[in-house]
């Protein structure tokens, strides 16, 4: 049960009544008894909450940054009207609104309520409970009850870099159009036969076909299709670091309204707003790359790994690839443990039997790579073409460029040190025959796509 503001108001008016009554003691007892009786009557006459039936429908998938509507149908099988308020409780980062809704269901009828979710982070969000408060006819007291009406909404990564896709696809078509090359090379495959025109390389004449057709025929080649691309996402501790500026407001980031860390007050306001985790930028890049590779006719597999395999997507058809990927990525969070590179390499080797392009999305952290990846890299690079893509921190570049005061110079030295380490580890990786893409957060997705196209053009896949 619950009391209402009206009951409190009646009790407050009772104070006045007792004060002016000729027999205050009797008045006190009278007011209290009348109030108690009215509350009991109200409770008895309020519509019952327990037999209510709730049905849900609506969206189950939403991209981060967009809104999802979830509908809740309240059916009242009881004999009394259920009038009051309803709260559909979701986790805070689901961004459910309105928080409390008015409800008025006559007996035997049903009413539809809509909750709009504006999620602030990726992952699965489940409705926790639906609470209904049914107020009695006098408005003094209410029955309150809770129902479980399960519904889950999966918040997918936003794939913001899809704006770069048309340009990359145009370049891919250009590549394919240019390449029906007469030069046979690595990474090309037989495309078709056509008539010889002056200027064609005589080495590409197909003599057998020429003999059959009474005409000189040349073979043409095109970039090889059906290559394999394995995207490996490092979800270890280095992927938790936040860089850049979050393109969608994130849960946990101090916002104007005072987020969960708003308690720090001025200190939080003075510090720069933490951006998006490296993990999310990496996912964005991985989505652009896989969209591009799928269009280019390559097969894309996806592996997320820190100390264990977090997600594995394999053999998805070209049309379903993106939806499988975003579904697999949605619940992945950065684990605050050191990634197990040895385990990651063995997981890759166990899954990729044939030669493929392994795109490793991680951070170029010298200490972490020295301990983890570098000793086991030769195993990987001897069988596969390895591309390491890392998100650099624009804040470090900013710090390195600022040299006004002594404090800034010390910070610049620290930033310079980080960049030096990064350049050295990049150079070492390149010596191992590994391609390296190191770009700031906004550029990592197009840079990775360009690197892929360059490899494709060079026929190195």
């Amino acid at each position, binding site marked *: 049960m619950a009391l209402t503001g009206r009951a409190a108001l009646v009790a407050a008016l009772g104070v006045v009544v007792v004060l002016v009554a000729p027999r205050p003691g009797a008045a*006190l007892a009278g007011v209290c008894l009348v109030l108690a009786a009215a509350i009991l009557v109200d409770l008895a006459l309020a519509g019952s909450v*327990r037999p209510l039936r709730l049905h849900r429908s609506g969206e189950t998938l939403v991209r981060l940054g967009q809104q999802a509507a979830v509908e809740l149908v309240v059916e009242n099988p009881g004999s009394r009207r259920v009038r009051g308020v309803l709260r559909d409780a979701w986790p805070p980062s689901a961004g459910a609104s309105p928080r409390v809704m008015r409800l008025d269901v006559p007996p035997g009828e049903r009413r539809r309520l809509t909750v709009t979710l504006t999620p602030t*982070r990726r992952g699965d969000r489940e409705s926790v409970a639906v609470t209904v408060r049914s107020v009695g006819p006098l408005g003094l007291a209410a029955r309150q009850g809770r129902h*479980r009406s399960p519904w889950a909404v999966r918040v997918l990564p936003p794939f913001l870099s899809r704006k770069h896709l048309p340009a990359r696809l145009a370049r891919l078509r250009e590549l394919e159009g240019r390449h029906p090359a007469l030069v046979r090379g690595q990474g090309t495959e037989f495309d078709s036969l056509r008539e010889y025109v002056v200027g064609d390389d005589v080495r590409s004449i197909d003599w057998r076909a020429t003999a059959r057709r009474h005409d000189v025929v040349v073979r043409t080649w095109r970039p090889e299709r059906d290559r394999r691309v394995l995207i490996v996402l490092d979800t270890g501790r280095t992927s938790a*670091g*936040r860089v850049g500026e979050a393109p969608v407001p994130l849960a946990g980031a101090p916002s104007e309204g005072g987020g969960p860390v708003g308690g720090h007050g001025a200190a939080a306001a003075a510090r720069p707003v933490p951006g998006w985790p490296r993990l999310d930028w990496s996912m964005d890049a991985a989505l652009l790359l896989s969209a591009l590779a799928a269009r280019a006719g390559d097969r894309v597999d996806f592996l997320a790994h820190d100390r264990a395999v977090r997600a594995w997507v394999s053999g*998805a058809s070209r049309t379903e690839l993106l939806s499988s990927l975003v579904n697999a990525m949605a619940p992945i969070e950065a684990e605050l443990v050191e990634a197990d590179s040895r385990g990651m390499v063995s997981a890759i080797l166990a899954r990729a039997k044939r030669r493929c392009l392994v795109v490793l999305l991680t951070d170029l952290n010298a200490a972490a790579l020295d301990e983890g990846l570098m000793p086991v890299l030769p195993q990987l690079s001897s069988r596969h073409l390895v591309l390491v893509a890392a998100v650099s921190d624009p804040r470090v570049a900013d710090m390195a460029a600022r040299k006004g005061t002594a404090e800034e110079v010390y910070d610049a030295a620290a930033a310079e040190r980080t960049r030096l380490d990064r350049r050295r580890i990049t150079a070492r990786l390149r010596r191992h025959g590994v391609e390296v893409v190191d770009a700031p957060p906004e550029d990592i997705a197009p840079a990775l796509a360009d690197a892929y196209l360059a490899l494709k053009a060079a026929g190195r896949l």
Partner: protein
Amino acid sequence: MSLTGMGPAETRQSAPTSPTARSLWRASRMAMLLGLLIVAAAVATVALGGGGGPSRRLDPDDTSLAGSKALAQLLRARGVTVDRADSVTRARELARSGDRVLLITDTSYVLDPAGLATIPGDRVVVGDLYRVDLLAPGVRSSAQVGERSREPECPLPAARAAGSAFIGGASFTAPRGATGCYPADDDGWTLVSMPNAGGTTTVVGSGEFMTNRRLAEDGNAALALNLLGSAKAVTWLVEPPEDGAGDTVAGPDGQSVYDLMPPGVGWAVAMAAVAVLVTGLWRGRRLGPVVTERLPVVVRAAETVEGRGRLYRARRARGRAADVLRAGAIDRLLPRLGLAPDAGRNEVVAAVAARTGQDAVQVGAALYGHEPTDDAGLVALAQYLDSIERTVGEH
């Protein structure tokens, strides 16, 4: 995992999760039983413990161990009237009937001790009271002594007849003409009897021998009866009841603040308490549960770099900072100058000097020199390195 595979059914059945009255009763009956037991035990303790309210020491109506109802009963059994008097005025009225003993056990609440001292007749003063010099002129307390069983050792008939008694508390000096009994360890007496204007004044060190606790021991009862039972009646001066506070807060008309209030105010305060309770219940009931969520950690990737910068700053690590800045500058200069990554110092300095047209010694000092001596030197070095890089980039 595909898009279609995870879509839940269009609707799902809901289930009420709030507890029913029956489950609430089942879950809480043990706790309620326990609470009832505790309340019952508390009620029983209070009921059996007797004393409804605080004990009033040496009060003829008090049945607690510190009270003196037993003594009052003994006196009444011997035909002595025991009258409680809670004010000096009342004691004086009673004294008019004559042949009375006035028993004074406490004077701290008496506003007019001098008036008390003028009441004629026998008088028994218990303890080292406030203004005992007025009540028994010439008697002064000399020391605090322990209470224990003492022998009378004096010719006073009342004490001799009673024998040993539990007495002590304060010892008094006896003035000329007075009789001292029950000697204390020093030279004083714990009972002093002396004649006054219309009778006898007896001062005892403590009233412990008159309490319900001690009355049955030694000759306590005998001593008390001998002291008080000599007359036909006893005026027993007691503390006035506390709720009659009108004595102190009364205004000139004898009316207190409470008398001036309308009678409903007290009840209205009670009603206001009820209203506050209802308001609290209204505001305190939450609509549904508090939902918690495990949020991802918020840590900026640049924090380690900033931390390193602060360490440099805190230690004034100019040498380290300069080395790193130089290494970074050389690292960027080498490809622009067309030099191999392992180019030697002289080669680099010569190439930079040639490209920028600056003095080779100065360039050498900047790129490979000593640690700057102060922060200003470090800032100057950083800015000079920047300018070299810019110039090389432009040419």
